């Protein structure tokens, strides 16, 4: 089996594992993730807990298990919502080439010129610290990326003969976009959405790391990492476990995204066939 296929399979297995852990968190976690045991604070891995304890003596493995829910929930929801919003804007912007299309794409370009972290931070400042608000903030931040991809595909597809034929036989615009244009733009859309899943996992942990993501006390990989920051030497396992979890999940998502791109993006797969 080729190394590439192996890495894609391993990545899919890792993502599936994280999904299973997140779904069955209450069964898998040995302790309540917020149970404080001060006498065991900063306990080392293996010393009565699988991967150690944090500065309040909370079981790190239990917190990691519950934290996976936040990462997956935020990542998947932000990817789905931005795919939905971006597809709508991209289709309308690409199909109606008049003022509406130009204005929509101008707003998209403007939002894209903001650094994503800054935009997400500003939105969190306005909306307040809640998990649902992280999803909204990240979706707004990533909508333009999807919109650009769908817009580019729509511009190409709308000029094809079969679209002209559909128009000529009187197919209405909504049906034309959904039944004739969208199915052919799904490849790049799917690829971009998979990458946004990965970006959103990093972005959520970044926001929680600096204290503007999940509410205080909620176990999230980013907030666990922030907890470990003050104990780099005395309890490096806190920082290592949370960071490694984010890294491995994001790496797996990116590998799957790359495989999807090679499969679904005709231009790039042509280039790799030339090898």
């Amino acid at each position, binding site marked *: 089996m080729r190394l590439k296929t192996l890495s894609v399979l391993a990545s899919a297995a890792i993502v599936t594992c994280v999904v299973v852990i997140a779904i069955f968190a209450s069964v898998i976690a040995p302790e309540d993730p917020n149970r404080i045991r001060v006498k065991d604070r900063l306990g080392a891995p293996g010393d009565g807990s699988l991967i150690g304890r944090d500065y309040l003596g909370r079981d790190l493995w239990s917190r990691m298990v519950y934290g996976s829910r936040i990462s997956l929930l935020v990542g998947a929801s932000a990817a789905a919502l931005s795919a939905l919003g971006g597809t709508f804007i991209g289709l309308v912007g690409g199909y109606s080439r008049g003022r509406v299309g130009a204005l929509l794409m*101008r*707003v998209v*370009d*403007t*939002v894209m*010129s*903001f*650094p*994503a*972290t*800054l935009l997400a*931070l*500003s*939105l*969190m*400042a*306005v909306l*307040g610290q809640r998990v649902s608000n992280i999803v909204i903030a990240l979706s707004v931040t990533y909508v333009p990326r999807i919109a650009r991809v769908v817009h580019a595909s729509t511009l190409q597809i709308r000029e094809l003969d079969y679209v002209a034929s559909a128009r000529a036989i009187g197919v209405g615009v909504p049906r034309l976009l959904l039944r004739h244009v969208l199915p052919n733009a799904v490849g790049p859309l799917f690829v971009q959405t998979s990458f946004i899943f*990965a970006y959103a996992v*990093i972005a959520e*942990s*970044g926001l929680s*790391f*600096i*204290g*503007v993501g999940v509410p205080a006390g909620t176990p999230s990989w980013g907030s666990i*990492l922030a907890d*470990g*920051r003050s104990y*780099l*030497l005395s309890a*490096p396992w806190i*920082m290592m476990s*949370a*960071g490694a979890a*984010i*890294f491995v999940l*994001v*790496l797996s998502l*990116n*590998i799957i995204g*790359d495989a999807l791109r090679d499969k679904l993006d005709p231009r*790039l797969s042509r*280039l790799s066939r*030339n*090898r």
Partner: protein
Amino acid sequence: MLGYVIRRVCGALLTVFVVATIAFTLMSIIPGDAAFYVLGKEATGGDITRFREQHGLNDPIHVRLARWYGGLLRGDLGESITQTGESVVGLVLGRLEPTVLLATFASIIGISMGVLFGVLAAVRRGKLLDFASMILALLGISVPGFWLGLNLILLFSLRLGWLPTAGYAPISDGFLTTLKYLVLPALALGFSQAGVIARMARANLLQVLSEDYMTTARSKGLREWRVVVVHGIRNSLIPTLGVIGISVVLVLGGAIITEVVFVLPGLGSLTVNAIMNRDFTLMQGILMFVAIITTGVNLFIDLLYGVVDPRIRYG
């Protein structure tokens, strides 16, 4: 060329105008009363009224918007609502040095490593070097910069003691002293840039290498290095120029969290403080400031495209 320049400059001005409107709207739709957020639960009705009058919050929204536009034209981004008497521009400028230096060093690392690995990967396509470069790039885009930063602190500062763990020394203390404080943050930030840029540079060069004129160059009997360097890299650098624009946006975004990790007193930590203190005017000003920088850089690159590639100028 003049028409192209005018079109681009007008486009950039329009972008700044749209950003100004978005930034204002964003900070005006905060649920509840900004005065209440800033003054807290113990504020009396009198305090709130005074605060609202002092900051013009009682005026209708169109009056405030007009005042915001007017201020922008004069280069005035208003006053901070939590640090009374401090102008937003003053606060931003006071924090600019560490961020600009961090962004510059991180971009140098990101662009040079990214272009180098991207080009090597494309030239040696399908070989071990391509594989190794792309694995490195994949690691770059997947590793969270803040976690990489903590690992660098653990290794180089806490274990080996080579570099300071956190903080900043201004450039007036000497370039080398400043550099010591910026090496690790720039590496943490630059590595993920390098990942993004390497993948783009590789894709761009592969595209160019598959063009017909490359075959022509080879069939003329040119040496392979000349074909790649003179015909390939040169042409692939045109789309890679756009990478610099993207890099600036990425670096400015990444700098926010990196500054928190390394306790750098820059624009990023000012942003986080503004959010923690719910200083909405400062937040609005920072958004505007960063947008002007990124729009300016993108405009510059657009104009550069026009100079480098005549098809764009006349297209």
